[in-house]
């Protein structure tokens, strides 16, 4: 419908919707509390759901009052943004997809729309249509706000997990008196290798280690930067009086290192972690001896 035929201006209908929402916030909240979005998040008590729904309804009223029904950044949304984020997060933890959450927000519209139509039964039809349109736009904006907050929550979660991964992925294991090992897994970028170096050097001091084994079985790619990080770690460990052994070099990696032209000649390397441990034990003067043949059979 062209603009000039509108029965009422956009601003007027937004303000009318605002007034309607304020007037009926309690009834709307009661209806919303039974909708899946609120019912499934606020499971403990219905009062809690009603209260949360009322907060959302009042926020929508404020947004409509400021005539910014299109604007996801409208100040009216600020107070409920955190609550909406918590609700969206709770739904996605429960296994709901983004599309489902979006659908549940959309489901809040019909109860309000029917209430609006009831309320305006006496008004001219085209005026009612204007109000209904304004309400629909407003509810669409609410849907966008919910998805927007949910997405930024997801981004924050990913960043936290990246940090966690950095910490989790570098355990130092004591294999024997004076022998520690670090099984390296995944990409060895600068940040990771810094963490590896720090934890390894601390472990060397703590455990009085004479041998440190860096196992790279779980490192898929050894390029010149990874090699440089390894050599720096080896050099630092050497300064602390520990000898480093790099183990877990697979055949494909060995050939690649040779073609790349990297010289790991200064580093003691072994094919497997077991070989590296055997080397360290030998150097320490410790031997593992099979039990005497008579002892093995005794029960």
């Amino acid at each position: 419908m062209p603009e000039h035929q509108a029965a009422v201006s956009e601003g007027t209908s937004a303000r009318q919707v605002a007034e309607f929402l304020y007037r009926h916030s309690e009834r709307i909240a009661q209806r919303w509390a039974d909708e899946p979005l609120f019912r499934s998040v606020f499971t403990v008590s219905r009062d809690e759901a009603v209260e949360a729904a009322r907060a959302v309804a009042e926020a929508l009223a404020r947004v409509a009052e400021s005539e910014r029904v299109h604007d996801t950044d409208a100040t009216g949304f600020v107070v409920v943004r955190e609550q909406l984020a918590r609700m969206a997060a709770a739904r996605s933890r429960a296994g709901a997809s983004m599309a489902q959450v979006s659908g549940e927000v959309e489901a809040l519209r019909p109860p309000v729309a029917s209430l609006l139509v009831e309320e305006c039964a006496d008004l001219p039809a085209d005026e009612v249509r204007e109000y209904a349109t304004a309400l629909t736009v407003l509810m669409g904006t609410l849907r966008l706000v919910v998805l927007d907050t949910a997405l930024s929550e997801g981004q924050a979660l990913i960043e936290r997990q990246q940090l966690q991964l950095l910490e989790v992925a570098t355990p130092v294991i004591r294999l024997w008196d004076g022998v520690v090992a670090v099984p390296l897994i995944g990409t060895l970028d600068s940040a990771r290798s810094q963490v590896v170096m720090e934890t390894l050097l601390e472990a060397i001091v703590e455990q009085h280690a004479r041998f440190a084994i860096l196992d790279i079985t779980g490192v898929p790619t050894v390029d010149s930067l990874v090699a440089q990080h390894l050599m720096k770690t080896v050099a630092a460990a050497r300064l602390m009086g520990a000898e480093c052994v790099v183990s877990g070099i697979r055949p494909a990696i060995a050939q690649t290192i040779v073609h790349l032209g990297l010289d790991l000649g200064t580093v003691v390397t072994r094919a497997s972690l077991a070989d590296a441990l055997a080397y360290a034990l030998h150097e320490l003067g410790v031997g593992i001896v099979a039990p005497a043949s008579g002892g093995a059979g005794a029960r």
Partner: protein
Amino acid sequence: MPSSTAVEASLPIQSEMDLAWVRQHVRQAAAQLGFGLVAQTKLVTAASELARNTLVHGGGGRMESAAVTRGQAHGLRLVFSDEGPGIADLDRALTDGYTSGGGLGMGLGGARRLVHEFAVDSTPGSGTKVTVVCWVTPPPRPYGGL
């Protein structure tokens, strides 16, 4: 061919995270084209070196990958492009041990040894484009020159 959609790609190289993505893509594309484990590892390592050059020296750029065929042979072509300062002295940059970034200085020369075809197109001031090709089947080796 269904695999061509996964082999052909244009990936951004703007952060360390993107390098991991580049490596993963090259590994998958190479596996799909039938590269053996050793050839895969070589190609991924070369891609890792070149992508890091694009990031560190070129200030970020892109990698394009595509399947190529020449006669009976088929292979994978990777193009790394940036709009950085370019390489002033290409011969020196390809020399092992020469570095301008605090690394080992093995990246460019090492990557050249890991692939079958290697070409650098660099104009100082307007960027660098490195193109590498690896063939799955033994490459059509032109005797007497390279």
